[in-house]
């Protein structure tokens, strides 16, 4: 073989080798793609499901779930995430053009003791602080502690942040600094508050007590609702991606790091309820934020059981489920 031909062959072999190396070095993970649908979600745990898209314009995280119902009413978003009871109620009452597709949060409520109650048992006369009267936290507490509720000295505060103040200070400032025995809390506020009051402790998990009372059904706290105008192919792809993203995060909490890089801690806390360190701790400790994914149609029994806490909503029919 002449020298020229030899050199030409070497160049071809090197080129093929380079192509082969490039092809093999590619990641076996699927590429992250931006959100193809417009999404509105409440902040906190539901927003955490979209951790890969926090910097995208197609995702709106709103701190007030009632504002998201506005988007549902106007049909201006392809996907809305709402408290399951609020979303189903809106669909049934107003005939809105959405279907419940999946549940992504399964409860993050815990009853905490301040350290004031010497017998460390919830019983008659104990002073209990709840938040969001007549909303999900209050309704769940009444359900799981229904037998003792009337005997308790129950007082309400507006938000979980106010409840956290009661847990740390051991008193209710809004009630003349009355000593508090127990406080209903939500994560991650609970873990932060426990770190500030050495006497405080977690008394019980609302999720566990709910499961005991309902034969192991789940609290279907927040769910994904999809606009019926969205093409099935796009909806299925969206749901598949959300499921994969959630499972990836639950299997390895450190996954979140690369997606929140460059987002200030304060902004992150406003969106997903805490900074990256706090969120990772929640996930690594038995998934205390209650994140998960379950297709709604496969979970109808749990959804109906949860919604039975609101008698005015009634049982759901299959036509409001995305299939």
């Amino acid at each position, binding site marked *: 073989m002449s020298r020229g031909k030899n050199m030409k062959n070497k160049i071809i072999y090197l080129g093929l080798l380079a192509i082969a190396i490039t092809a093999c070095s590619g990641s076996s993970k699927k590429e992250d793609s931006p959100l193809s649908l417009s999404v509105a979600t409440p*902040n906190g745990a539901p*927003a955490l499901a979209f951790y890969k898209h926090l910097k995208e314009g197609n995702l*709106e*995280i*709103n*701190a*007030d779930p*009632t*504002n998201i119902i*506005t*988007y549902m*009413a*106007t049909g*201006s978003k392809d996907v809305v995430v709402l408290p399951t009871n609020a979303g189903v109620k809106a669909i049934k009452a107003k005939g809105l053009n959405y279907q419940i597709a999946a549940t992504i949060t399964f409860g993050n409520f815990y009853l905490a003791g301040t350290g004031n109650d010497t017998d460390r048992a919830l019983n008659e006369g104990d002073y209990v602080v709840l938040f969001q009267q007549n909303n999900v936290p209050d309704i769940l507490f009444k359900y799981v502690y229904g037998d003792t509720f009337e005997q308790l000295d129950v007082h309400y505060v507006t938000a*979980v*942040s*106010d409840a*956290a*103040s009661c847990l*740390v*200070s051991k*008193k209710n*400032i809004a009630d003349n600094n009355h000593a508090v025995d127990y406080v209903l809390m939500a994560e991650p*506020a609970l873990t*932060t*508050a426990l770190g*500030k009051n050495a006497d405080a402790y977690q008394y019980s998990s609302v999720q566990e007590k709910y499961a005991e009372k309902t034969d192991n059904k789940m609290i279907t706290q927040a769910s994904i609702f999809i606009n019926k105008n969205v093409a099935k192919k796009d909806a299925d792809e969206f749901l598949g991606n959300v499921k994969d993203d959630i499972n990836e995060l639950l299997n390895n909490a450190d996954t979140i790091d690369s997606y929140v890089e460059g987002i*200030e*801690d*304060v*902004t*992150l*806390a*406003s*969106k997903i*309820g*805490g*900074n990256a360190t706090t969120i990772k701790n929640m996930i690594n400790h038995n998934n205390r934020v209650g994140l998960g994914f379950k297709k709604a149609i496969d979970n109808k029994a749990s959804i109906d059981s949860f919604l039975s806490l609101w008698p005015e909503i009634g049982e759901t029919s299959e036509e409001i489920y995305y299939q």
Partner: protein
Amino acid sequence: MILWYFISLSQGVGNLIFPTPIDVFEETFSLLGKSATYGWIGFSLLNTLKGFGISFALALIFGSLAGNFPKLQLVFKPLLIVLKSAPTAAFVFLFLALSNVQDASIWIVMLLAFPILYDSVVAGINNIDPNIIDAMKVDTKATLMPLVKVKLPLALPYILVGIASSFALSFKTEIMAEIITGNTDDGLGNAIRGFRNLDATNLVPIFAIALIAILIILIVDLLGYFLKRYLKGKYSI
């Protein structure tokens, strides 16, 4: 400051209700040393300026019309009553439907600022010396030129009072609006929410942001003072 200090001590629970001024000032300086703070300030100020600017332009138009044609004041009165008395929270959902969450707060600022600015333009024109108006009518039958060259400059003291009283209120409203519209992207209001989520029992950063908002208004007031002096000299008002 001393009163603040004693109130915070009297509460006995430290930063849970009323942090001490020392803690707040320390946190304020710490926040002012971070670039993110200026992003929050910029977002809130920009939205305030947008809402305020649109309100001012509309107030000049409608206020000039009402000032020149008194019967129009009666026509506009019902609208002004609605704008002044309607609870803002009732309109949040409408503003979210009309625009996106980042811009909804601009509508809320407009809802607050427009009536105040409109009233100041109308009051300014109505309080011009009638002799000047009569003299103008002798000189010309035109409407627009006397309005722009004579009436509005003479109405300036009232308009400046309207601007001074409504801008600070607009800025405060913008911060509140960021919270009630649920915006989680940027702004001082969103920062307040973020700090509450980071640690619900620590009010020091919340008070620090309030102090930063006050400082911004003081700076704007100072700029307004110099602008007023310049305009006084230019228009001899």
